[in-house]
């Protein structure tokens, strides 16, 4: 894709079910065919991508797609095509282990009840760990381009503000002050038995009970001393998000709900000073009327007669109804695509027609890749 030339990191963003994973894989495949060492990092736990790449499963490590498998699909790949599926929990655990000062500290965190909830359920935690992984892969120098298929549920703000949110959870001064006495007790090796004191803490405890606050204090304590390391990483992640080497590709379908989401994401990027590199609209209904020909009942009957096809079981009527329906779909899709084009003036827009079948193999990915080529 032209607008992505020179970019080292490509983030495919958009709502779930719009073909993000497929688009990401197609972009990586195109880059590999052009001679780049390309990696697609997916979060989609369905084995679909793995299958279409000819793998049984994708793990939490980079896997090279066997060139012979690519050759079978009649694809000449001059570079390398890599794929990997991110395991949220394992990646977080690895990150903690890497940053902990001692093995004991790492274990204390991994065992913490709150850590388990926060690492998997907190808004932005998946997005953060995904970007963190991208940073790691990118810095390894082993890849020319890393394409990220972002989590299906993320919204723009979760994504862009994930580093700040994660940092805020790890070290929050205000909470530190409120939890003060409880933290102090813990630091001197006392068990966290101190009752919540202070009006704010006592009020909060009325909602969740004091056990939860104790867990919270234990969580903050466990991270003590690791904060600086995390802060540095998060700053790097943040810098990477807004670097010119990173390109955001908005992926959408022509459904008004998903285009709205795409536009929302675009504006969120803009507010953070990031330009959208390209928009991909998947599954656009082709208009059968582009072929011309009769589209009303009388004319269709005549055309059938001319072609010596019997008008049995109201065939002409059924054809007429089908043509009308698909014209409606095509009009709706066109209206949505035009609206996107108008709003996103200046952003290169690519459309991929609705294909007759789901994309299941490398050949299918390449077919998509061709619609995304050039400008």
């Amino acid at each position, binding site marked *: 894709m032209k607008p992505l030339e020179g970019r080292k990191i490509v983030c495919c963003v958009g709502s779930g079910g719009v073909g993000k994973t497929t688009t990401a894989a197609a972009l990586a495949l195109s880059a590999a065919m052009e001679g780049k060492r390309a990696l697609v990092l997916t979060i989609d736990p369905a084995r679909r991508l793995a299958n279409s790449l000819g793998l049984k499963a994708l793990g939490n490590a980079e896997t090279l797609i066997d060139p012979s498998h690519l050759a079978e699909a009649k694809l000449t790949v001059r570079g390398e095509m890599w794929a990997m599926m991110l395991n949220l929990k394992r990646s977080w655990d690895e990150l903690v282990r890497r940053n902990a000062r001692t093995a004991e500290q790492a274990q204390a965190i991994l065992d913490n009840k709150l850590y388990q909830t926060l690492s998997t359920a907190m808004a932005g935690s998946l997005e953060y760990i995904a970007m963190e992984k991208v940073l790691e892969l990118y810095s390894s120098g082993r890849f020319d381009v890393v394409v990220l298929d972002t989590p299906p549920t993320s919204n723009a703000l979760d994504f862009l503000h994930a580093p700040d949110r994660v940092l805020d959870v790890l070290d929050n001064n205000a*909470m530190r002050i409120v939890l003060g006495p409880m933290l102090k007790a813990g630091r001197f090796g006392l068990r966290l038995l101190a009752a919540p004191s202070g009006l704010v803490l006592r009020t909060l405890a009325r909602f969740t009970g004091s056990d939860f606050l104790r867990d919270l204090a234990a969580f903050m304590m466990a991270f003590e001393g690791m904060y600086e390391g995390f802060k540095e990483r998060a700053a790097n992640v943040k810098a990477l998000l807004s670097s010119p080497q990173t390109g955001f590709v908005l992926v959408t379908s022509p459904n008004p709900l998903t285009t709205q989401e795409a536009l929302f994401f675009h504006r969120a990027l803009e507010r953070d000073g990031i330009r959208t590199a390209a928009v991909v609209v998947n599954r656009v209904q082709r208009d059968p009327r582009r072929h011309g*020909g009769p589209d009303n009942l009388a004319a269709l009957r005549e055309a*059938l007669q001319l072609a010596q096809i019997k008008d049995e079981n109201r065939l002409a009527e059924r054809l007429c109804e089908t043509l009308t329906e698909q014209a409606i779909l095509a009009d709706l899709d066109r209206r949505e695509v035009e609206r996107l084009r108008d709003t996103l003036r200046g952003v290169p827009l690519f459309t991929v027609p609705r294909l007759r079948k789901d994309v299941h193999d490398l050949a299918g990915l390449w077919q998509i890749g061709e619609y995304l080529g050039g400008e």
Partner: protein
Amino acid sequence: MCIRVPRPMPAPVDRRLVVVTGKGGTGKSTISAAVALAAARRGKKVLVCEVVAKERVADLFGRPPSGTEIRQLLPNLYSVHVRPREAMREYALMILKYETLYRLAFENAAARYFLTAAPSLAEIVMLGKVFWHAARETERGRLRWDMVVLDAPATGHGLTFLSVPEVFLRLVSEGPLARDMRLMQALLADPERCSICIVTLPEEMPANEAIELDRALRQRQFPAGPLFLNAAFESRFSPQEVASVTRGGPLLTAAGEAADNHESRAALCRHYEGVLRDTVPRRLVKVPFLFERNFGAQAIDKVSHAIEGAL
């Protein structure tokens, strides 16, 4: 020995809480609106609760957004948008009684942190609010609503949403929130009073997610409502017809392509319907694809008639 004769479960339309879940973009709001409309037509007083960031149901009926106040959309049919911030405030005030105390405890940096860290507190208060509606009585002690329809967040978040009481109770066992979460958990698990439906599309990812969601919901023993297969295409042409029209010369190119498109979508639909019937032990209800230039009240009316039999 005591033989227990299972009592027939009340039809979904007779249950107090109907939860509509599914992947994003499958038409949860449409189905929620249609379920509510079908029930309202049968004389039930129905409230639709929307908990996602942007409310849609009022708009589907061509009405202005309801916001956080309950608004009537049609006779017997009402909707409300439950938002985390307002729900939190209302909830906190119910317990704390004093506005100043609320401000002191919740409108400071530490509390904001607390709200992020406390497991899904936003979801908890929203679910608490929905529960409050479902259990609300009139002065005469009768239930205020015959049915509350919860238009739940998309799958990943939807399952998290329904598991909120469980997750919360694992971490917090005391306090007023824990008490309410226990009541909510009991309602969500009760097949006499609650039904959890799934909405999906005849496409790969939505179908797969529906299968996973169904499994997860059954594992947690949530009462299984119908599976709505939305935007379904029915076959209309025989393969011979498609072949002969496609070969019928330039005048029939457009018609041939349209027929072929239609049949390829019908084939996909048939495929996923088969997969879903084989793997999801729920009543499958097909909702036909609607070709509407403007999707509004008329379309919802059609959908409500299509699903009526399943309620």
